[in-house]
């Protein structure tokens, strides 16, 4: 039984509630995005906000990603706290000029005289033929830009708390949601609460291998950790990184000093990934603590193909993480225990949906 004021809701419901409560707290919070007030309501994350807060605070938008981002920046400079939403992160590429040249720079280039309290919610797609332009995971691209904060909450609890922190933050924040997290439930307080940006969280304690994971890969890592524990009694430490920028390197260092081994699991293309950056920083600062070279688990360096037949082995999962752990610990992959372990990790249902209930289209 959850404690009072707590209940199980999905990630999507938690985001909706976070938006709702932030709008209730502060009349300057406005929400805009393609489809925000439409019947689908951005995967139900903006449902009924217009009914509650009216057409002067909840907006649909012309297909002008760059222009409307600039409009939101201008509004933010004039006292509003806009939340802008893109149904796919790929669409935000049209707004890179405004995000990189204006939002990220304004505070710095004008000597701190003004700031841009803007949240941009962007959703990373996966599966069901999302293909090359609807399933990119571009956190590394945004993390290259000083002045932007980039966060990737994994649980419903953190989605709500970090969304509220992002809205209250005086900096532009890229709030990256993985589409496959939207239907996952978690215990979420009914109250208005904050989860700090820039701090990772230990999802599973262990002393053999540190697995630092981003977004949906933290879900996969936790599955791997539970299976390793139950079948082989091996405790890996799973860190849900939660933020990309700032990146909580200190917590990873602390864990690596205990385990001596590091795997970083990212949702993005391998080369130039945040995983690579995190490993670099750990190697720079704790080389002698490492018993083995660190490993990266990430997507292959080619676009996501659309056909389910071609896409079948594109994404790493718990089995990838378990295999990397086995390599590091010298576990015999032909052993009965390992075969039993991997048997537990076989996903049921189609590979290209988050759950059997998902029937498309996006």
């Amino acid at each position, binding site marked *: 039984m959850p404690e009072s004021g707590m209940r199980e809701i999905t990630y999507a419901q938690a985001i909706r509630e976070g938006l709702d409560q932030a709008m209730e707290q502060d009349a300057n919070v406005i929400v805009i995005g393609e489809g925000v007030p439409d019947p689908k309501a951005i995967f139900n994350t903006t449902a009924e906000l217009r009914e509650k807060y009216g057409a002067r605070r909840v907006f649909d938008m012309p297909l*002008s990603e760059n222009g409307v981002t600039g*409009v939101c920046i201008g509004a933010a400079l004039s006292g509003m706290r806009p939340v802008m939403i893109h149904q796919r992160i790929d669409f935000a590429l049209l707004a890179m000029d405004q995000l990189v*040249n204006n939002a990220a720079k304004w505070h710095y280039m*004008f*000597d701190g005289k*003004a700031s841009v309290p803007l949240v941009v919610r962007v959703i990373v797609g996966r599966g069901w033929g999302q293909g090359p332009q609807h399933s990119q995971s571009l956190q590394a691209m945004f993390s290259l830009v000083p002045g932007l904060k980039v966060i990737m909450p994994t649980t419903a609890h953190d989605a709500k708390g970090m969304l509220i922190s992002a809205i209250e933050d005086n*900096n532009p924040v890229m709030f990256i949601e993985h589409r496959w997290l939207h239907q996952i439930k978690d215990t979420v307080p009914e109250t208005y609460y904050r989860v700090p940006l820039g701090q990772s969280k230990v999802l599973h304690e262990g002393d053999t291998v540190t697995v630092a994971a981003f977004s949906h890969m933290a879900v996969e890592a936790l599955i791997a950790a539970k299976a390793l524990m139950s079948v082989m009694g091996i405790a890996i430490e799973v860190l849900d990184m939660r933020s990309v920028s700032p990146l909580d390197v200190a917590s990873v260092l602390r864990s690596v000093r205990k385990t001596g081994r590091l795997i970083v699991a990212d949702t993005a293309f391998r080369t130039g990934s945040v995983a690579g950056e995190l490993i670099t920083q750990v190697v720079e600062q704790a080389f002698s603590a490492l018993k083995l070279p660190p490993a990266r688990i990430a997507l292959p360096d080619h676009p996501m193909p659309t056909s389910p037949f071609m896409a079948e082995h594109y994404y790493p999962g718990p089995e990838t993480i378990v295999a990397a752990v086995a390599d590091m610990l010298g576990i015999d992959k032909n052993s009965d225990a390992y075969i039993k372990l991997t048997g537990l990790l076989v996903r049921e249902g189609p590979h290209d949906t988050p759950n059997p209930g998902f029937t498309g289209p996006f």
Partner: protein
Amino acid sequence: MSKDELKLTEQQWDRLALLRSMLRIRRIEEAIAERYAEQEMRCPTHLCIGQEAIAVGVSAVLSRDDVVFSNHRAHGHYIAKGGNVRALIAELYGRSTGCCGGRGGSMHLIDLDVGFMGATPIVGGTVPLAVGSAWAASLKDEKRVSVVFFGDGCFEEGVVHESLNFAALHKLPILFVCENNEFSVYTRMSERQPDRPIYRIAEAHGMAAYHGDGNDVEEVLSIAEAAMDRARNGGGPQFIELSTYRWREHCGPNFDDHLNYRSESEIESGLKDCPIANFASRLELSNILTQSVMDSFEAEFSEEIADAFEFALSSAKPSSKEAGERVYA
């Protein structure tokens, strides 16, 4: 020098103030050009010499609460809105007392005390910001109007059309001021746009649009007055295209006619159409301006400019240790 001393009516005094304001910008820009070669103002600088009437004519109808956004060629807009001249010059010299503390330079100006919200050099970058500021004013039921200055080249940017569409859709209180000086760096209009008036495109976006002689400060003023009146009273966005001419090089202190990108006769007629000289003779004919008034303006500006440069040059230099500060609010 006062209105009464000069025995001028309110209206005559206001006309004289337009000349004074243009001349002040001209002299400040000339002083910058003159000292730029000393290699101590180490930032790209775009002077507005020849284009002063637009900044002055439009700013004359703005109140302190109205906000202005601008672009890479922003000195005139900043000065006309009442921006701090000492902070401008100090910014060019990269000093701590500059309006951006040395983090911006000539292409990044701000003075929030007078509603100068910011100028930046990515062409088109500030146009949607001005719309956003107007949007905020509208959502908060505040009376202020947003103004954004941009050039004919900027009108080719997609974001400008996105901004016009948004402003028209939400009927926002904003003045779009397009300074058409015929050139985008060295490329003339005929190589960039078909032969049709810019302001008519804006009109097609669903807003009132005007065109006028940007070298005639009184024409600018009267168009801006009408546009402002409509913008302030629920008339939605207003677009003003004003024709003008850039005297000097796109970026830097010099004339660049040796590059031969424009003909001698064109340059000659451009320089002849001087917004300051033209208006000064008009005021002389109307017995508003005399040589002694002109002399007193010159003396006043030369003192002000000397003071601003001295202030800048005697100001503290920021340390490279501060370079990493203020990335985040």
